[in-house]
């Protein structure tokens, strides 16, 4: 396999023929009942919107910050070096 995915390959994916089994699957999903019946709660294991926690900012520990720095792929003179940006 080529190291870099060429535009030709990507275009061929875009133009790929739809799969019959995937189409059947989408039909099943579209036709499925939404299962909103409140009496059917035997396997009730979804989280309701009102049960979501508040967004909170949690400060990372000193150790966590240190490990994040250690994992950074490229450093120079004490700075973290990011990949080249695209110009224009």
């Amino acid at each position: 396999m080529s190291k870099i995915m060429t535009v030709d390959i990507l275009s061929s994916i875009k133009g790929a023929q739809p799969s019959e089994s995937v189409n059947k699957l989408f039909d099943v999903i579209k036709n499925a009942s939404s299962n909103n019946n409140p009496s059917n709660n035997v396997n009730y294991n979804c989280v309701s919107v009102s049960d979501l926690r508040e967004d909170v900012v949690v400060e990372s520990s000193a150790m966590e910050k240190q490990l994040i720095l250690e994992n950074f792929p490229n450093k120079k003179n004490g700075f973290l070096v990011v990949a080249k940006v695209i110009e224009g």
Partner: protein
Amino acid sequence: MESQIKKIHQQLVSKEITCTALVQGKLDLLQQNTYNSVNSTLDVLALELAAKVDAKIANGETIGLLEGIPFGIKDVYMLQGTYTTASSDLLKNYKSPYTATAIQKLLDAGAIPLVKENCDSFGHGSSSENTIFGAVKNAVNPELVAGGSSGGSAVNVAKEYTVFSIGGDTGGSIRQPAGYNHIYGFKPTYGRVSRYGLMAYASSTDCVGPLAKSIEDVRIVLNVMSGKDPKDQTSIVSNEISEESIETSNVKTVGYFKNFIESEAIDAKVKADFLAAIEKIRAKGIEVKELDFFKSDILVSTYYTLAMAETASNLSRLDGTNYGNRIEGENLIDTYAVTRSENFSEERNAELLVETKYYLKVFPKEYI
């Protein structure tokens, strides 16, 4: 088999063995093993924790059931300061900045982590061959594969290198290797155990679960790991499972998937054994129901559509920006492309191509 956890707990309490000797013995076995089940051992941490348990026992303090029990961790779980490679080239030098909730709960209960265990890279596979650490060999017959993706975990438990191990199951990754290595593996209800700190494969089906040599050990470990976690909003409140509830099970009905049994792809012996097991269940007076879902090929494509689309999204972060083995290209997009092409295996790249295809079909505008 009897509970290994309870047996070792008794041996520790009665001072028949020391925790240090127990841990050292297991570490030696792990390091010498020829099954490729180990990515790295956690010697310093494990022996430090073992010494603390020994000191407690020497002081006459009571210890908890899991205190001093050595366990293994599939190498896709965060444990602060340890290498968490996902058995991949991309993360071979990655160190966990924090600890997964499930693992933290076990640490809080006093269990001792010994080893980060080999698996299919990022949990993608069913044989534990797709790994940079060498294919894991089956514990029963080393000529065969260990199954996967939690193959290293299953082998370590089967060979008694660990008392229990924590695997991850998306589409069979705990249950299948447990079966291949003749031990127990359990995929809990989604949400029962927090996924925080587990490297995501397909987030909507990923589950954290134990592998052990007895059902009782599975129960003990599951109870400790379960619970709602603010760090994983899909986690749910659950009740503790009692020992009695398993011994005096009042299960009246069992269902099974008739479509898979009718599939031509199933091996004749596997089918016969499965149906024999169904008969045993029926003989106990339990009603057995054949469940009729849509065809098994549609089910498999359902799974792959969801799993591949989710994994494409989850793996998109592995681009060498913040961590991993970045390979610089001419510009940012080139850097992403080369980093991912070089670091993902050919198999992984082929899968990503399929995943992208699904995404293009479902979300064409967003992904073009």
